[in-house]
């Protein structure tokens, strides 16, 4: 139980000193990417090997035994360290040495190096373009231009140990806030000009001030962890990798607006995030950092966790509120804004996970410190999920105002396929596709709006020449059409119309007049929809129509997909000269479109062929030819 700022600082020191007594800490990344590439086995092997050599030591042991011991090694699993492409990742502290693609069988050799104080070069990061080898994480180009504020602990600590969070200055922002007047807390945030990271970029302090000004004792604070944007996993990484930063931000926000109850709404597809948040809430309660009379200030705050049930629209704040109330997740008109009448018609502030994770740092280090990073209109940093055709995929956090070019080429290491970039999709289904000419646009809330895109939640998907932009537009429209809640006619029917037209074009049946219909429908949907889902739904189509019109025209006029991706426009044939008649393709074909006699060349029935390309991958003799 911690009851004062003083005790927090004592704990920070105590834990740091304990850790310093270990010979090293080996931090195995257990983020989603690394976990899927087998980090668990690496961690288990590491513990086994440490135990076998008698050099395993836990933080608890170090805390209880004051005597210096520099022989033991602490092993721990952390949240996402970011460089998912090279996972499983293992970092050795305090030096900050990063090992990549570590396999269980590498563990003994890696441990030898750690115990002898040397470096195992084989597993270090080798830059494929320059051949340079990097020992320290911070020197690697992927990390060099990043600044970690929201992700400062993500990937550095055991997310299930509240003490590890406290040891990194955790809950000190809360202590500072509770020593201030609640209006002074809002003023600090106002000065920092922290804008909402959930997509809109609305200043957090302004929302807080409105809610704080409302009468009455009952107010609510909601943390939006719905993260439905396909291709984004930043909020998930924060909730899984540093849950206490979200809780601390929520308590500070609760104190500022005068709420005593908070909710975390987590997407159903994130079971681990739910578990981690639950565990962290319990720990914070046990330690007196949640519950009654927090840090002896008289302020009380509780947090409950609500799980989403699989509806993208529930990320929209009024739909989210309806969902917590137990209704269908349908948005309602604003005003009244939630900060005036939200959950159960009481004043409610909704903030995104990343916004809230920034709050403790602002309070701990002050608005001036925060404003040193980023641009003056968009201070601070933004996290992005970098994916698609890029060499270094992963989770990144960069200062606002960095250009997309720097992100793709400096951090991302350019295209994975080595080819030329065609577009960067930013902001998911609400965002747009930017062509390479626009890559120098600084990434901040306002610049992107000018070119028909938005930062959105922060999914950043790099697309090479083999991605068809019409198909991308169709993909997003299909997503939105399925997720439209059905309340507004324009959104419900208009998106269906747009989808049908796009499908027609990708199948080679479009007409040039369809392009005008798409623009017209898009504008109508934007005007006629109530919530952000409908208002931004046409963005992917409109932005591709603007920047990649020639691709649409090629589909319509030449019946050709320049990227060779639209299946209906492709033609698969078997080269009889190469085919050995092995029948592998026959067994792979999902449509039973391939026929013939074993030992003789097979033939594809064009009327049955789904154009899925499965046969191409299955053929060992490269006998299947594809024409775009």
């Amino acid at each position, binding site marked *: 139980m911690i009851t004062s700022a003083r005790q927090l600082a004592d704990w920070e020191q105590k834990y740091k000193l304990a850790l310093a007594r270990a010979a090293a800490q080996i931090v195995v990344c257990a983020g*989603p990417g690394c976990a899927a590439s087998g980090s668990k086995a690496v961690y288990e092997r590491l513990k086994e090997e440490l135990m076998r050599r008698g050099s395993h030591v836990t933080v608890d042991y170090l805390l209880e035994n004051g005597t210096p011991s520099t022989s033991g090694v602490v092993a721990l699993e952390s949240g996402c360290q970011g460089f998912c492409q090279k996972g499983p990742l293992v970092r050795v502290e305090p030096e900050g040495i990063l090992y990549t693609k570590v396999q269980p069988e590498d563990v003994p050799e890696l441990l030898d190096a750690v115990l002898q104080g040397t470096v195992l070069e084989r597993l270090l990061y080798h830059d494929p373009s320059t051949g340079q080898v990097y020992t320290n994480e911070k020197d690697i180009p992927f990390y060099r231009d990043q600044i970690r504020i929201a992700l400062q602990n993500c990937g550095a600590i055991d997310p299930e140990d509240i003490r590890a969070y406290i040891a990194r200055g955790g809950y000190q922002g809360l202590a500072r806030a509770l020593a201030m007047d609640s209006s002074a807390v809002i003023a600090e945030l106002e000065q920092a000009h922290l804008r909402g990271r959930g997509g809109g970029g609305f200043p957090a302090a302004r929302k807080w001030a409105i809610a704080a000004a409302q009468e009455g004792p009952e107010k609510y604070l909601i943390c939006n962890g719905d993260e439905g944007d396909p*291709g984004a996993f930043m909020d998930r990484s924060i909730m899984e990798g540093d849950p206490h930063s979200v809780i601390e931000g929520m308590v500070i926000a609760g104190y500022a607006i005068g709420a005593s109850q908070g909710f975390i709404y987590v997407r159903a597809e994130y079971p681990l995030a739910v578990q981690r948040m639950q565990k962290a809430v319990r720990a914070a309660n046990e330690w007196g950092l949640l519950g009654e009379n927090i840090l002896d200030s008289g302020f009380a705050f509780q947090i409950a966790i609500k799980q989403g049930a699989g509806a993208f629209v529930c990320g929209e704040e009024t739909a989210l509120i309806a969902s*917590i109330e137990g209704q269908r997740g349908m948005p309602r008109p604003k005003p009244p804004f939630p900060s005036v009448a939200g959950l159960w018609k009481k004043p409610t502030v909704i903030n995104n996970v990343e916004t809230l994770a920034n709050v403790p740092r602002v309070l701990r280090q002050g608005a001036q410190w925060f404003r040193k990073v980023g641009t003056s209109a968009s201070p601070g940093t933004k996290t992005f*999920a970098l994916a698609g055709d890029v060499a270094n995929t992963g989770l990144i956090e960069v200062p606002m105002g960095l250009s997309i070019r720097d992100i793709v080429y400096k951090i991302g290491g350019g295209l994975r396929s080595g080819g030329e970039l065609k577009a960067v999709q930013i902001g998911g289904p609400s965002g747009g596709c930017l062509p390479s000419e626009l890559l120098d646009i600084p990434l901040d809330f306002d610049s992107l709006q000018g070119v028909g895109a938005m930062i959105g939640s922060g999914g950043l998907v790099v697309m090479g020449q083999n991605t068809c932009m019409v198909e991308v537009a169709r993909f997003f429209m299909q*997503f939105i059409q399925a997720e439209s809640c059905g309340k507004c006619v324009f959104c419900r029917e208009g998106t269906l119309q747009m989808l049908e037209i796009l499908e027609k074009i990708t199948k080679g049946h479009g007409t040039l007049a369809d392009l005008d219909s798409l623009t017209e429908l898009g504008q109508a949907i934007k005007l006629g929809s109530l919530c952000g889902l409908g208002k931004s739904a046409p963005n992917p189509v409109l932005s591709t129509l603007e920047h990649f019109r020639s691709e649409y025209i090629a589909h319509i006029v030449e019946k050709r997909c320049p990227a060779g991706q639209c299946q209906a426009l492709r033609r698969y044939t078997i080269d009889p000269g190469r085919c050995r008649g092995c029948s592998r393709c026959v067994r792979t074909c999902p449509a039973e479109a391939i026929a013939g006699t074993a030992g003789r060349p097979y033939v594809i029935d064009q009327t049955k062929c789904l154009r899925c390309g499965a046969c191409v991958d299955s053929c060992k003799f490269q006998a299947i030819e594809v024409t775009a």
Partner: protein
Amino acid sequence: MLAAAAVEMHELVSRILARHKKDPSSLIPVLQDLQDELRYLPKDCLTMVAHGLGISPATVYGVATFYAQFSLEPKGKYVIRICDGTACHVRGSSPLYQAICKRVQLEDGRATSANGLFTVETVACLGACVLAPVAMINDKVYGQMTPEAINIILDELEKEEEASDHICKTAS
């Protein structure tokens, strides 16, 4: 037999209702718990839940059909979720999906195979975009999937099923 099943279901619903506040806002958590236990929401249960929470069956039905997580039909023992998020989509999740549907012999428009073993769904982003295309079978994530690789995994699952079936039969 039928009556016994109804009693059992009633008990389950009562047990779950007892864990939550008797309040409309408990509706979604109650349905989530039910679905966890039964892997779907039988229609009779919905009425019981409505009575239990003091709301109309229409409201319960409306909520149960609005959210993608809820299923009014039994799901298979293995739920295969193919990620069709942006990153997976651009790296070939559609052929993967088609191959699986064919492999487990889904009939027109149904998501669950006739033998009740497999349910195939798509999902937007599983948060492992690095390993695109990604599939998830129950709680396990499989990265860099190809139609061939997923067929091998499904072969193994079916073999396991047959083996355990065999054990059950010889034991009884």
